[in-house]
């Protein structure tokens, strides 16, 4: 009976995660919080573990499906903002499908790394947690500085880092709902969409092919992804974005393809490790993990094993679903005038921002969009716009 419940929870979790992943602006935390509000009602029918399985499956599926709208529509959810630029590059060459395939291959690799390293991290993390915590401020500052040094236009990179950082600091203080949505949508999504519109971008016919990477490259980005993700999954306020900055320091310059795989690995690995943190250090480290831990109440290793198994199954289903949706997008996107699609998406993003985060949120969106446009016109890598999340976190840790 419990087995059947869990399988059902996995399937419905994947369906929910597919929905939140494909829709820009609907954050997975929102669904999880809704679930928590009704949890008393659900708990009279289902075991806590079943609900936790639902949440984990949803989070994992979300981390896969998230890449489809980011790459095809430049519409980010909060974890995939950095994939828009490399994804768009491949899209312009007719390789949108391959771009999704690369990212979610990364996601699946992340899932496998999660399963392999969880026992190790469970033992190691309680011991090294304290030292990471104390040195995190320095690690983050070093990560940012390395990123600057590698840039040709160092002054402007630093300037854009500070500008987006200032916006991030102010936005997180404002009393708005989902502050990250207008912030990241403006910096990474809307600015990109407006550039496509003003350049009258036309998409070529999309090919259904896959791009293969060298095994050595996979090994290299997997290890840097693992190091960065485990640094950022166990501390408050850190997540996939900070992990991406650290991992790209470790790797040095990457092309669009390897960068997409790296972002995939980090996206799923961080999502998974946020849950593992509940068991390793008794701290849930993401909105969805907080909800799962509130529902579960107790922590035992049997639960963790069930959750990991559920995550692995969800990852498999989400992989296939992502490819299906990517195929659908690839087939139709070049038939419709891309400027019209872009205008439509821009309209949806603006409406969602107004609806979710109100008037102040809309001002954040406008400001963020123009900072993003400034970075594009200066030819500065979008990574530096992550100052919006790096600066507040650095100030928190020092």
């Amino acid at each position, binding site marked *: 009976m419990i087995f059947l419940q869990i399988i059902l929870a996995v399937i419905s979790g994947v369906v929910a995660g597919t929905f939140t992943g494909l829709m820009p602006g609907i954050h997975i*935390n929102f669904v999880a919080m809704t679930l928590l509000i009704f949890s008393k009602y659900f708990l009279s029918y289902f075991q806590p573990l079943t609900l936790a399985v639902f949440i984990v499956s949803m989070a994992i599926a979300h981390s896969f499906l998230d890449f489809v709208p980011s790459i095809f529509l430049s519409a980010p959810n909060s974890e995939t903002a950095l994939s828009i630029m490399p994804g768009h590059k491949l899209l312009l060459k007719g390789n949108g499908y391959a771009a999704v395939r690369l990212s979610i291959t990364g996601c699946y690799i992340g899932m496998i790394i999660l399963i392999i390293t969880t026992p190790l991290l469970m033992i190691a993390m309680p011991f090294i947690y304290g030292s990471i915590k104390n040195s995190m401020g320095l690690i983050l500052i070093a990560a940012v500085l390395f990123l600057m040094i590698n840039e040709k236009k160092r002054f402007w990179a630093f300037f854009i880092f500070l*500008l987006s950082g*200032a*916006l991030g600091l*102010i*936005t*997180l*203080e*404002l*009393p*708005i709902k989902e502050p990250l949505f207008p912030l990241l949508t403006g910096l990474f999504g809307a600015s990109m969409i407006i550039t496509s519109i003003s350049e009258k971008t036309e998409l070529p016919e999309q090919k259904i092919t896959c791009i293969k990477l060298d095994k050595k490259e996979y090994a290299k980005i997997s290890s840097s992804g693992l190091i960065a993700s485990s640094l950022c999954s166990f501390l*408050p*306020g850190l997540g996939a974005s900070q992990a991406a900055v650290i991992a790209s320091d470790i790797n040095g310059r990457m092309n669009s393809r390897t960068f997409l795989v790296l972002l995939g690995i980090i996206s799923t690995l961080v999502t998974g490790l946020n849950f593992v943190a509940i068991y390793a250090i*008794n*701290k*849930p*480290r*993401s*909105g969805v*993990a*907080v909800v799962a831990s509130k529902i579960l109440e107790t922590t035992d290793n049997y639960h963790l094993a069930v959750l990991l198994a559920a995550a692995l199954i969800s990852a498999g289903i989400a992989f296939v679903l992502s490819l299906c949706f990517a195929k659908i997008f690839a087939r139709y996107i070049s038939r419709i005038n891309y400027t019209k699609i872009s205008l439509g998406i821009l309209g949806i993003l603006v409406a969602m921002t107004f609806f979710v985060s109100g008037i*102040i949120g809309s*001002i*954040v969106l*406008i*400001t*963020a969009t*123009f*900072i993003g*446009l*400034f970075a594009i*016109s*200066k030819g500065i890598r979008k990574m530096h716009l992550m100052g919006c999340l790096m600066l*507040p*976190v650095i100030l*928190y840790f020092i």
Partner: protein
Amino acid sequence: MMERISLIVSFIGIIVLLVLSQFVEPKTISIKEVDETIIGQTISIYGNITSVRNFENIELLSVESLEDTSRITVVVFEKADISEGIAKITGKVKEYNNQIEIEAAEIKIG
């Protein structure tokens, strides 16, 4: 041209938001919503101060929700001789010694 316009709008936006942030009240949430996900944010809570512990430099308040049984620790860095009772507390959410707590910036009693 585009560069200059984006730079100007960015600055105006940041200044407008900065001014707004000085005037808009931080969002008020219930104590059970204070968790890991909002660490670093400034928020307000309503609650009943049930105990005040005095230390050398700080005061630790134990605050209970008015709606349910959830509670939270509030740290006050300036000695203010706070009394027990219902209050509105505004401050930053922090993690200290593995506990979530609020670092008070303003406390209105009653």
